[in-house]
């Protein structure tokens, strides 16, 4: 019925009649990458890099393992969001809303933790914040 002015519907016309169907191979590759990272996570937990590095160099990087594991988790989550959840081919609006939750959550973490750190409740510096020796 009525014609939609392009200005009102930010570009949904562009997407209207095409739909991104991803290649099967893409899904398999993502899956294999997720498997690889899963094994890497466990390996990082089992072979304590922090101890290994400390023994080799005397450098004690606190919370190195958890940092590695969380970095991997972020990579895994990004893969799932981008490919399995199709945000990669999504509209700008989808991108904004897909990012909003994660960004706001980090904000909450930062604001609340800053109180705990300032209170000195944190028994030691948060993992990875300082290097000793």
């Amino acid at each position, binding site marked *: 019925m009525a014609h939609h002015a392009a200005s009102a519907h930010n570009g949904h016309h562009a997407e209207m009649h095409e739909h*991104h169907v991803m290649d*099967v191979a893409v899904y398999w590759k993502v899956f294999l990458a*997720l498997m690889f990272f899963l094994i890497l996570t466990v390996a990082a937990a089992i072979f304590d890099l*922090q101890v290994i590095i400390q023994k080799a160099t005397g450098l004690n990087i606190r919370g190195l393992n958890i940092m590695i594991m969380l970095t991997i988790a972020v990579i895994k*989550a990004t893969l799932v969001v981008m490919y399995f959840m199709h945000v990669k081919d999504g509209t700008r*609006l989808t991108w904004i809303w*897909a990012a909003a*939750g994660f960004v706001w959550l980090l904000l909450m973490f930062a604001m609340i933790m800053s109180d*705990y750190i300032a209170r000195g409740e944190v028994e030691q510096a948060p993992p990875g914040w300082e290097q000793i020796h």
Partner: protein
Amino acid sequence: MSVQVKQRRRGHVEPRPEGAVQEVAHQFEDIGQQNESYIVGMWSFLVTEIMFFGGIFMTYIVYRTKYPQTFTIASGELDWKAGFLNTLILLTSSLSMAFAVRNAQLGKRWRTLLCLGITILCAFGFLGVKTVEYSTKWAHHLVPGPNFHFSRHGGEQAAPADRGTSFVEDASPETSGGGAKPEGEIPQHEAQLFFGLYFASTGLHGVHVIIGIILLAYWGGLVQFNARAARDFIPIEMVGLYWHFVDIVWIFLYPLLYLIGSPKL
């Protein structure tokens, strides 16, 4: 990178003309508007889910930084191999879910059903492993409440003194000398906090898995028995978004709960 792009191009199979088969609800003007509304709607709902689980992660962060030793030791009581198996199962279910969506997009009804079936199977497998884990924890008095008593049962007993608690080593003088604290020194309520958070987060996640199973079964049934519903892939896509989100939560829960206790092979 350019290879990637090429593949994506090749992957752009034009599905059947959508406007002809997907039905447009009365409040929408065209199918493009309807489809994107559902996707954006689902994502803004997932934002609430992120913040919801985020609250649990917030409490986790606070208490883990407050009681790092206890959390490290208590985490050793969790069976990381069971968690590994469950991660494997969930990632597999995510793959089959992704394929279910793809087949729905292409209008391949039977393949969609097959993939949904595999996803549901994986979900049940996940819950099965979880049940075994929970009952072990119950038997070991690790469920918070009047019966709670933290003592060691898992593989941690064999822990060599120089490993596994390296996190703890230089944290405070009384634990120096390496190795885990003897169990008597671990404040019971701190350990209870860890298990409280463990049950709260995995329980909440489990509830989401159960809801996921119901959604998957419902839409699977519709695809099976209702030709009209089978033509619209958007509901499957939305269930997929939900399912992948549940997967993402687990991706973070697994290392934070199971792997901080320096597991042994």
